């Protein structure tokens, strides 16, 4: 069973093709690193998965449901942290948590409370006064609050300090311990993903370079992920 099936997904902005005929699958129960250089099309692809951008062609199926036709049902089951989470920043943390919870039938309030405590986020603080790190941690706590079957993280901790990045890895590990949960985690920092990913999808210039098991990739290339990536991207650039 696949948690994500992407078929021929394409996005054009005018004459520029940001994502071109992208196809890959992510098996249920895995942590998939979605990797590519800056500007490779990762965010555009993820925005199409989340129905925040309309594909020019192709489709994405999440948890067996079409990402556009079943968008509302999927909101309950898919957690998402974008690269720059936009919160209603005039709100206090406590109000934002309550507001977010109101969209979910099943909301894990104790879990969110635990995470806020661990991240030392003051519930009476206005969201706009939070540091970037706290803002990212808050976004993670809110994404986990809905007990998502699928968690999609778009460069969530890039540029943040090592402790915040660790919080994200811990969040991923804890979620994946539960039966059948799946995580898609995009980054241009390969080593960050390497620790927790068992699957990888590598893209460049909007196109798929490789997808499959990280371990099989290492065994077949006999190289680190970074070296394999450089070799595959370099090969393409010369074509």
């Amino acid at each position, binding site marked *: 069973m696949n948690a994500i099936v992407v078929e021929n997904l394409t996005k054009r902005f005018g004459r520029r093709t940001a994502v071109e005929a992208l196809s890959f699958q992510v098996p249920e129960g895995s942590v998939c690193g979605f990797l590519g250089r800056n500007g490779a099309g990762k965010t555009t692809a993820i925005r199409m998965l989340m129905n925040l951008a309309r594909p020019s062609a192709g489709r994405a199926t999440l948890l067996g449901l079409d990402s556009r036709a079943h968008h509302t049902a999927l909101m309950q089951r898919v957690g998402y942290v974008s690269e720059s989470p936009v919160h209603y920043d005039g709100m206090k943390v406590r109000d934002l948590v309550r507001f977010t919870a109101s969209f979910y039938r099943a909301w894990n309030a104790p879990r969110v409370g635990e995470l806020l405590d661990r991240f030392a986020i003051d519930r009476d603080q206005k969201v706009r006064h939070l540091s970037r790190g706290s803002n990212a941690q808050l976004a993670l706590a809110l994404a986990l609050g809905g007990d998502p079957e699928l968690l999609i993280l778009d460069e969530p901790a890039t540029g943040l300090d090592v402790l915040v990045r*660790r919080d994200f890895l*811990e969040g991923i*590990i*804890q979620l994946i311990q539960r039966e059948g949960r799946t995580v898609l985690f995009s980054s241009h920092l390969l080593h960050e993903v390497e620790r927790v990913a*068992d699957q990888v999808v590598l893209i460049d210039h909007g196109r798929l370079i490789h997808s499959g098991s990280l371990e099989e990739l*290492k*065994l077949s*290339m006999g190289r680190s*992920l970074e070296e394999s990536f450089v070799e595959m991207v370099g090969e393409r650039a010369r074509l």
Partner: protein
Amino acid sequence: MRLNLSPASPIPMYLQIAEQVRRAIAAGTLRAGDELPSVRALASEHLINPNTVARAYLELEREGLLAKRRGSGTYVSSAAPTLGEAHRLAVVAELIDQALAAAEEFGLTRSQVRALIDQRLPALQEKSS
């Protein structure tokens, strides 16, 4: 169990884990009947994917080094000490092979190599177990 893992290495992490458990058994740090940390505990401790730990344990079960007990955890199997002995010899044999390859590359003679080993043997501390 403290593992020393390099996620960025070309060697897949499940093989790194399996090799370190094998070595611990070979060295006698882990003995027959010892319980290993659960997949969940090891994954949380090292912030790695539980699937990776599970794959390493499965590999070691296939080799007969580990055994699962129903409803409890994963243990070092009772057959492990003899496998451990074979593994101990294999590890040292491989290191000797590497040294011999270097000797060949540098054009050393057999008697030179033998002399090098003989010089070092007295320093070997034999365990009285």
